[in-house]
C-alpha cells in the first residue's frame, strides 16, 4: 500500500528545474491562476522577511529565550496550508512562525508575542514556541518535541466524532520521530481510522545532531508501514511538489478517514535556535550549497518569471512590502505595552476568567505575595 519509489536527499541526478516544471502540471497545480501563484510567493517571502526581522530584534535584545527560525523551509508550510478547507486544522512544533503566518495570523500579533507584549497573539504568555489561533484552525505552537503528535490525533478524532469531513495536519521535525508518543499516536490514528496527516519536516538535523547520527531505519516515513499507514517522501524546496503530495494525503483523510505520514525533505538555514552555534555539526558550505540550488523562494521566483506568471517588478515590490510589513511589526511590538503584572494569573483557569459562570468554590491561587 505504500509508495516505495520515494526519492531521497542524496539522489544526485535530481533535476530541480525539470521536476518543478513537472510538478507544476500536477492536477492541484496546473489550474492555479497567476494570482494564486503570486500569493504563494508572497506568503513565503513574508515568512522569510518576518523571520529575518525577528532575528535582528533578537540580536538587539528585544526578544529573549529561544527563537527557532523556519528560514529555508517556507514552501512546506505555505504549500500545505494552501490546500486547507474550513474543516482542516493545523498543529505544529516550536518552529511555528511560518505556519502561523501561513494560516493568516498577522505579523503584528506574532512579533508582539515574541517581544512578550500584551498585544501578542497569546498576550505575551506563550512566546516564540507557543503561537495559537483557534479561529484559524491553528492549534499551536508546541514546545516539547513530539508532544503535539497525540494532540494532532485528538483533533482528527474530534473531527470524526463531530462527523466533519476535515483533517488535521500535524507537523513535526525529523527529531520528533524518535519520541515515543509519535508511535502511540500512529497506532491510534491507524487503529481508529483518524483523518490525521503527520508531516515530518525533515531538515536533516535533530537540534545539532544530523539525521545519520540520530536515526536508523530511513526514510523516516517508512516507519509508518508498521502501522499500516500510507507514507511517502518528497522534497520541500518545491511548493508544487509539497502541494501535490499533501493533496493526496488530504484526499485520503477526507474520503477514507485514513492517516498518512508524509516526510518532506527540507533544510533550515539557521541554527536549531538562533543562539545555537551551528558550526559544530555542519559547514557553511553545506548551507550555501542548499541556498544556491534549492532555496524554495528563489526557485519559485525563477519559475514565476520563466512562465510569465509575474514580472520582476511585481516580485520586487512584494519583497519590499514584506520587508516593510516586517519592519512595521517590529515597531508595533516595540511600542506595545508589556502585559500588566495582574495578567500573570489570568488565562490559567477558564473559571476564574469567567466569574459569572463560576460554580466551584474555594481558593484556586496560592500566592505568597500579599
Amino acid at each position, binding site marked *: 500500500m505504500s509508495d516505495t519509489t520515494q526519492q531521497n536527499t542524496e539522489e544526485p541526478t535530481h533535476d530541480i528545474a525539470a521536476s518543478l516544471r513537472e510538478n507544476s502540471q500536477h492536477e492541484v497545480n496546473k489550474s492555479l491562476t497567476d494570482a494564486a501563484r503570486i500569493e504563494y510567493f508572497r506568503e513565503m517571502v513574508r515568512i522569510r522577511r518576518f523571520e529575518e526581522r525577528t532575528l535582528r530584534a533578537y540580536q538587539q535584545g528585544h526578544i529573549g529565550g529561544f527563537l527557532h527560525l523556519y528560514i529555508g523551509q517556507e514552501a512546506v508550510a505555505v504549500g500545505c496550508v494552501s490546500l486547507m478547507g474550513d474543516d482542516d486544522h493545523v*498543529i505544529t512544533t516550536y518552529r511555528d512562525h511560518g505556519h502561523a503566518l501561513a494560516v493568516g495570523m498577522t505579523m503584528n500579533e506574532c512579533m508582539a508575542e515574541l517581544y512578550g507584549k500584551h498585544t501578542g497573539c497569546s498576550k505575551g504568555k506563550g512566546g516564540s514556541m507557543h503561537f*495559537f489561533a483557534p479561529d484559524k484552525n491553528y492549534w*499551536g505552537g508546541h514546545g516539547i518535541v513530539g508532544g503535539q503528535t*497525540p494532540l494532532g490525533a485528538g483533533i482528527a478524532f474530534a473531527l470524526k466524532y463531530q462527523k466533519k469531513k476535515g483533517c488535521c495536519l500535524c507537523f513535526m521535525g525529523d527529531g520528533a520521530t524518535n519520541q515515543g508518543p509519535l508511535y*502511540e*499516536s500512529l497506532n491510534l490514528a491507524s487503529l481508529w481510522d483518524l483523518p490525521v496527516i503527520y508531516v515530518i519536516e525533515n531538515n536533516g538535523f535533530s537540534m545539532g545532531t544530523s539525521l545519520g547520527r540520530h536515526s536508523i531505519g530511513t526514510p523516516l516515513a517508512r516507519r509508518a508501514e508498521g502501522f499500516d499507514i500510507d507514507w511517502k517522501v518528497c522534497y520541500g524546496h518545491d511548493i508544487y511538489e509539497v502541494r501535490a503530495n499533501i493533496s493526496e494525503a488530504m484526499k485520503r483523510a477526507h474520503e477514507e478517514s485514513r492517516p498518512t505520514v508524509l516526510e518532506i525533505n527540507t533544510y533550515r538555514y539557521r541554527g536549531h535556535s538562533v543562539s545555537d552555534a551551528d558550526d559544530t555539526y555542519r559547514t557553511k558550505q553545506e548551507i550555501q550549497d542548499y541556498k544556491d540550488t534549492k532555496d524554495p523562494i528563489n526557485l519559485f521566483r525563477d519559475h514565476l518569471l520563466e512562465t510569465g506568471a509575474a514580472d520582476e517588478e511585481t516580485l520586487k515590490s512584494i519583497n519590499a512590502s514584506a520587508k516593510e510589513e516586517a519592519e512595521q511589526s517590529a515597531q508595533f511590538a516595540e511600542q506595545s505595552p508589556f502585559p500588566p503584572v495582574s495578567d500573570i494569573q489570568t488565562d490559567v483557569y477558564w*473559571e476564574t476568567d469567567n466569574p459569572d459562570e463560576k460554580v466551584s468554590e474555594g481558593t484556586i491561587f496560592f500566592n505568597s505575595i500579599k
Partner: protein
Amino acid sequence: MPVIEYRDAINQALAEEIIRDPNVLVMGEEVAQYKGAYKVTRGLLEKFGPNRIIDAPISEAGFCGLGIGASMLGIRPVIEFIFWSLCYVAFDQVINNAANIRYMSGGLINIPVVFRGPANGGTNVGATHSHTPENFAANTPGLKVVCPATPYDAKGLMKSAIRDNDPVFFMENTLLYGDKAEVPEEEYLVPLGKAEVKKEGTDLSLIAHGRCALLALEAAQVLEEKHNINAEVVDLRSIRPLDEETIINSVKKTNRAVLVEENKPFCGVDAQIAYLIQEKAFDYLDAPIQRISSIDAPQICSMPLEKQQIPNVERIVSTVLTQV
C-alpha cells in the same frame, strides 16, 4: 434512598453526563468490553455503544494526548487511568499540555478533560502502582484536583468535574470502590472546592482527604470511646481549589490540627495545609500542627509492612494522644 457502591456512584455520574451532553465520552484501557479494570464503567458500553465508551490500547501518553487534543475542539473526554501511577508515562501530556495550553494560548483554548482513576497504596502492588500524585497535580496551576472519599461525594464531584471547563484530576481509591452508602436518585452536584465537616468536634481537627478522611472518622470514634476526646473531622474532598475557610474555621474552633494524608511527607498536600493554618490561624493554635503521612520511602510490597507504611487508625490515635 438507594445504597450503592462507590464504583457505581461514579458509574451513575458518567452515565448521567453522557446522556446530558453528547460531547461527553469515556476513554481508557479496558473501560468498554472488559467493563473497567475495577468495574467502574460496567454496563456503559451496552448502554451507550463504542463511540462513547472507547477501549484504548496501553498507550497512556497517546490516548491522554488524544483526549486533550479532542477537548480543544469541544469534546469532553473522561479518561481513565487504571491506576493514577500510570500518569507518569503520560506526564508531558497531562502536565505540559492539559495544564498549560489555556495559559500559553492567552485564554483562547479550553481543555475540558477529566482524568480519573485510583490513586492509593495499601493493595500490595509495590512502588510502581501505589502513587498518590495529588500533590504533584495540585502543584501545577491550570489543573484542578479532587479526592472523594464517599460514594455520595464521588458522584457529585464527578458530575461537577465533567461539566468543568478546566482539566480536572479525579483521584479515587481501589480500597473504596466496594464501599456502600446512600446516594440520592435525584440529580445533585458537589461543587469543587468545598470541604465537608464529616464529624463535628471540639477538641481537635483531623483534616484529611481521600480514604484518610474515613480513617480519621474511625480514629475519631476510637478517641471518643476510649479517650474521651471529641475530634472534628474535616474532609477536604477537593485539593485545588481548596476550601480554606472550612479548614481555618475548624482550627479556630478546636485550636489543634492533625493532618492526615497518604502522600509521602515531603511536599505533600498537607505541607500546604500546615502552612495555611500557621498563616491564618497562628494565634488560635494551642499545639504544633502534626502530620500523618505515608512513611517516607518507596511503597513497600510486603503486605503487613505496607499497612504500617500508609496512615492507619492506630497511628492517627497515637499521634492525637501526643497533642491533647
